């Protein structure tokens, strides 16, 4: 079950990278980065999964005494929570710069921005 999630995450990373490298429109590049971001988070959470165990929340189903035998690893989940929120901040910044570029030049095709090329 975690093999499926890990393989899907890796395939999403590859497809996101392909979309980011071959598209010319800046908005499509940003959308492909978002797909690759989702793939990375999927791989991270799939590493912490253990077969036959349940979520790391202590309630009536998982009493406090045998918590260490019945829950999965909680550390990757804490890291991925942070990563998802920061991914949104980065996407918002990329979209702001795309809007500013459109205001300066009137086009969103990245091969028309040749100011830094020799």
């Amino acid at each position, binding site marked *: *079950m*975690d093999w*499926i*999630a890990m*393989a*899907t995450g890796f*395939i*999403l990373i590859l*497809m*996101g990278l*392909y*979309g980011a490298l*071959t*598209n*010319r*429109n800046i*908005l*499509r590049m*940003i*959308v*492909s980065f*978002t*797909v690759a971001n*989702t793939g990375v*988070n*999927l791989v991270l*959470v*799939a590493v*912490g*999964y253990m077969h036959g*165990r*349940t*979520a790391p*929340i202590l309630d009536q189903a998982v009493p406090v005494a045998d918590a260490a035998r019945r829950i*999965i690893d909680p550390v990757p*989940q804490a890291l*991925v*929570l942070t990563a*998802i*929120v920061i*991914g*949104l901040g980065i*996407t*918002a910044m990329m*979209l702001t710069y*795309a*809007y500013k570029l*459109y205001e300066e030049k*009137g*086009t*969103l*095709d990245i091969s028309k921005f040749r100011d830094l090329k020799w």
Partner: protein
Amino acid sequence: MSHTVLLTLSLLLAVAMIGAAWITISVHRVATAMLAAGLVSLFASVMFLLLAAPDVAMTEAAIGSGLTTFLFFFVLGRVRGGSDD
């Protein structure tokens, strides 16, 4: 849930996610690509729940599938004219 039901559900979700990612990189209109990215995020949220991570599923559904799609469409509405490929 029993093991085979879990396995079948995760296989279906994986195929749907890869199909939606394929639509993202190979369709002509930018609006459809943005909607397909929101769909990838939604399926990933359900898959997080199957991987026994309810906190992460809630965060991905609220932020990845809600706010990101809205941000994309806000900016798309303001760059009319430059967004045709």
